[in-house]
């Protein structure tokens, strides 16, 4: 199964859904992500068979120790490491029902050497330029975290950057969205919808109300990145049992309690970059 995870680095990741995958018997997953602690956790839980990615970073901590561990120990040899723009292109192609989108990105680099399945195409016009045909990245499932959603799947993302969540939703057969607040859409107005509604409700298959669901990543304007937690998480790469015991072998309600409660999550100051 191929799962795409929205957000970017340590920002607006659907972490409670990721933790549920860690708790589940799902395995051998192909993951697609602008990677952060979602990828780190899933690699330490040995859920990943293949990773399609451009980077894995915790933003405030440049590298993710769990992902590094998995790569350096040889547990995660199957990676499709591509330019983050190629990742966007692959998702976009899937969303538009195209087999590929042309680009120059990747030419002259080991991205193409390491991914021989990515082919070239020649421009049919007079320029005859040789271009990379970035193949569509089709997802079985996309997982996203938003600020508000109604029961029909009309969602609002208030954060400063919507990232590529809309492309993940369009590339997927099914999209599941965790939301800070489940609201009645009579509270929406034209301005809100015009600015913050990034994709249509027909793309959304399920909604999970979950305040604090992005923790320890940021969900502006409600809370920033929990740097203290990310430090604890980073340290746990080599002694993962203890972290699992406290945060993964428990249900989400206990997780939230163990990180200090929902009030402490929503009082984490917004991150300055």
């Amino acid at each position, binding site marked *: 199964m191929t799962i795409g995870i929205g957000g970017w680095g340590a920002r607006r990741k659907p972490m409670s859904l990721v933790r549920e995958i860690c708790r589940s018997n799902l395995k051998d997953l192909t993951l697609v992500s602008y990677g952060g602690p979602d990828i780190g956790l899933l690699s330490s839980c040995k859920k990943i068979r293949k990773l399609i990615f451009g*980077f894995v970073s915790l933003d405030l901590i440049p590298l993710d120790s769990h992902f590094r561990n998995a790569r350096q120990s040889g547990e995660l040899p199957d990676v499709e490491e591509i330019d983050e723009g190629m990742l966007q292109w692959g998702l976009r192609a899937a969303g538009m029902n195209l087999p590929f989108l042309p680009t120059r990105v990747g030419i*002259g*680099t080991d991205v193409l050497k390491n991914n021989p399945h990515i082919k070239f195409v020649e421009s049919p016009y007079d320029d005859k330029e040789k271009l990379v045909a970035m193949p569509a990245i089709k997802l079985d499932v996309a997982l996203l975290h938003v600020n508000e959603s109604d029961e029909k799947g009309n969602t609002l993302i208030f954060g400063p950057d919507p990232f590529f969540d809309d492309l993940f939703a369009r590339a997927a057969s099914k999209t599941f969205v965790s939301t800070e607040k489940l609201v009645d859409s009579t509270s929406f107005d034209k301005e809100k919808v015009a600015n913050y509604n990034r994709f249509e409700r027909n793309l959304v298959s399920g909604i999970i109300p979950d305040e604090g669901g992005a923790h320890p990543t940021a969900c502006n304007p409600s809370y920033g990145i929990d740097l203290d937690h990310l430090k604890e998480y980073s340290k746990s790469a080599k002694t993962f049992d203890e972290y699992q015991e406290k945060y993964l072998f428990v249900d989400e309600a206990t997780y939230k309690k163990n990180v200090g409660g929902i009030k402490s999550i929503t009082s984490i100051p917004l991150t300055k970059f």
Partner: protein
Amino acid sequence: MADQFTISEICICEAAKVWKDDGEILATGIGLLPRIAVGLAKKLHNPDLMMTDGEAFLIDQPHPLGVGAEPCVDGYMTYSRVFDVLWSGARHAMVTPTQIDKYAHLNISSIGNYAQPKVQLLGVRGFPGNSISHRNSIFIPNHSKKIFVEGSVDMVSSVGFDADDVEPLIGKVITNLGIFDYQGNKNTLRLLSIHSTSSLEEIRDNTGFDFEIFSTDETTNPTKDELDIIRNELDPNNLRSSVIGE
């Protein structure tokens, strides 16, 4: 000229000059020193530069690092827009690769055997696209043979001068020892100046491949104006002192 200054301050002042003649483009300094350098460039050399707050907005003036001041926002620059801008070419970034070689290939992906790297780094991020779309200057805080490698970088994350159909746009290479570019014969690395704190011998000993010498002049030292802006406005808490061990 000021009496005393650090290597970081020499680097920031020289780095700021790379954006001088760029006109109205997006300047991206990745990492602490390049970021301070963009601010200095905006204040002293090129007021038309566009710069981001590191999140999703353009700001009209650099805000002091680590002080928490709210920047004045005058534009929007989400990651999606960054791709639109960079593929058009209207950007000049300054980046810090983990390895660089004689063809100007950069590596930020991994060190060692690709299937099981000795050291897993960030991943290629946007380097492949950046390297063929817009100019990139390079800042190296610890000039050594581990970074300026003999032979090829372990994972080619950006286009080099050995490619058939494309050519990288490399600006200046600014290190803790000297200033370089890749404008030597057949795009060889070329020494432009040596910092007052370093020597040609030290540069040779710490570079894993041959380079041309255009000049062995001393790098221009920071002026009082430059230092005042860096110390009082851009980095009042002296975060820059942590970047180069000095």
